């Protein structure tokens, strides 16, 4: 479904990614783990087109999308839930969702999708008319995920959804990922909360200093000596 081939990227002179190659198949749940500043967020930005790579290709469903703008990639089925949720604070919960219905499919199925999302995240239904800026951190994160789902993506990229949240809320959000996966949505989860994400995914890549240093099934990485020492604190 998604192929990233030899991508190098960065911010003008500051190079962040070095020849990154990875593959995600349809229906998979894939984790990208690694320390702060490793380039995980940058990689996601390249995949959705918020950042133009120096070199390399992004291929989605067999099509080279490296040079098309972000909103077009969204139409093709790639959606990003950005780091730190970043909801639109001065719009209500409902308006945040409505603003995300930018494609024809999303507009047509909007009411159904919203109903589905309100079952997935009941708290958002209660907060429907509230300004998004007044939600708690966990609720904002749920709204950001829900906003991405309004677009009925084929591939959902989620950046650091657990950052700064209580474990209980994290579990709740990860439970929702399980359901999304059941609906056939391909997931790429960027996380520093390594144990949780390895438990909930099929495969994982470890990124350090802009390079992929390790990859394999999530179960393999869980028992890998290096990962256990450096990331799981065993």
């Amino acid at each position: 479904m998604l192929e990233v081939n030899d991508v190098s990227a960065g911010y003008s002179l500051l190079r962040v990614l070095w020849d990154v190659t990875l593959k995600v198949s349809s229906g998979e749940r894939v984790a990208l783990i690694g320390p702060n500043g490793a380039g995980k967020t940058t990689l996601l930005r390249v995949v959705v087109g918020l950042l133009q790579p120096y070199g390399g290709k992004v291929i989605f469903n067999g099509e080279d999308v490296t040079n098309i703008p972000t909103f077009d990639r969204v139409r093709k089925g790639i959606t990003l839930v950005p780091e730190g949720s970043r909801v639109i604070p001065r719009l209500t919960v409902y308006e945040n969702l409505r603003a995300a219905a930018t494609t024809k499919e999303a507009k047509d199925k909007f009411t159904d999708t919203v109903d589905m999302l309100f079952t997935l995240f009941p708290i958002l239904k209660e907060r429907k008319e509230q300004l998004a800026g007044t939600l708690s951190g966990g609720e904002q994160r749920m709204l950001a995920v829900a906003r991405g789902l309004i677009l009925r993506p084929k591939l959902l990229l989620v950046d650091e959804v657990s950052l700064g949240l209580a474990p209980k809320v994290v579990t709740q959000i990860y439970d929702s990922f399980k359901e999304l996966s059941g609906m056939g949505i391909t997931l790429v989860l960027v996380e520093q909360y390594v144990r949780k994400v390895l438990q909930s995914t099929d495969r994982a890549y470890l990124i350090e200093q802009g390079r992929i240093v390790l990859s394999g099934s999530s179960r393999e990485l869980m028992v890998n000596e290096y990962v256990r020492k450096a990331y799981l604190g065993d």
Partner: protein
Amino acid sequence: MSMFKSLNIKYIVPLAVILYALPLIPQQPYVTHLMIMTLMWAYLATAWNILGGFSGQLSLGHAAFFGIGAYASYFLTVWYGIPPIVSLIVSGMFASLISIGIGYPCFRYGLRGVYFTLATIAFAEILKDVFIYLRDITGGSLGIWLPVTHEGIVNLYFISKESYYYVITSLWLLLMIILSLAGRFKDYLIAIREDEDVAASIGINITRYKLMALLISSYFTGVGGSFYIYYFRYINPYTAFGLDTSLQMVLISVFGGMYSLWGSFIGSLVLTPIGEYLRITLGGTYVGSHLIIYGVLLIIIIRFMPRGVFGIAEIIRSKYLIRGG
């Protein structure tokens, strides 16, 4: 359906009744003039706010569109004999057309923030100089006069000031209704203002929507300029394209609350009469002193109400909703 979207309509209807009924109370022509100015600046600030407030692209050159609307109306009326009521609608299109000249290069190549603002100021200043320079066509710095014509709505020429008041009130109400109904469009613009990366990530074509905001904003601003020349029957390049005119729209909008559809009206309701009053009482004896007082008032108010008068309403609204939720 958002609760506050329907509330907008709920407010507009009774307000329309009040505004239309106001001239039934007999009053001095000067008071009517003041009401016309208040509505005109409310209208212009609302039009500015589509681009400056909702999409967050701070234009300090909206006089360009105001001036084009005014001059286009003059040319259409005097040279081509097109009925003023038609020119009023068409002149805005010229303003939109001109706005592409500044908007496309800026938005396409990512001129943001302060650089966009500077570009808009330069754009209006260039137009001003061009209109001063092309004396044979534009009348140069002396400006242009509209000839006296037959009274009536077709010619937008009335002896009584009340008729102008009804015209500008209707224009403003129309704009408010259009904007109240454009909920989704407004959401897109606000998303762009608050976070361009997020807006792109949810599939909003940022360049396109910024351009649309500019086209619509400049259209209505141009219509405002058209109204101005039909009311005053005179304009010159300094008024038409001057920074004062641009700033007035921005100040009213920011003062009233640029994040709200109602801010511009509230802003004009307060600032326009104060400005006029100070000009009349002080402007003659101590030239310029009214501007000092006006400026100090603005500094104080913006210092203590950074989100404008309407920002207070927003704070109350969110507090109430936290308690309520």
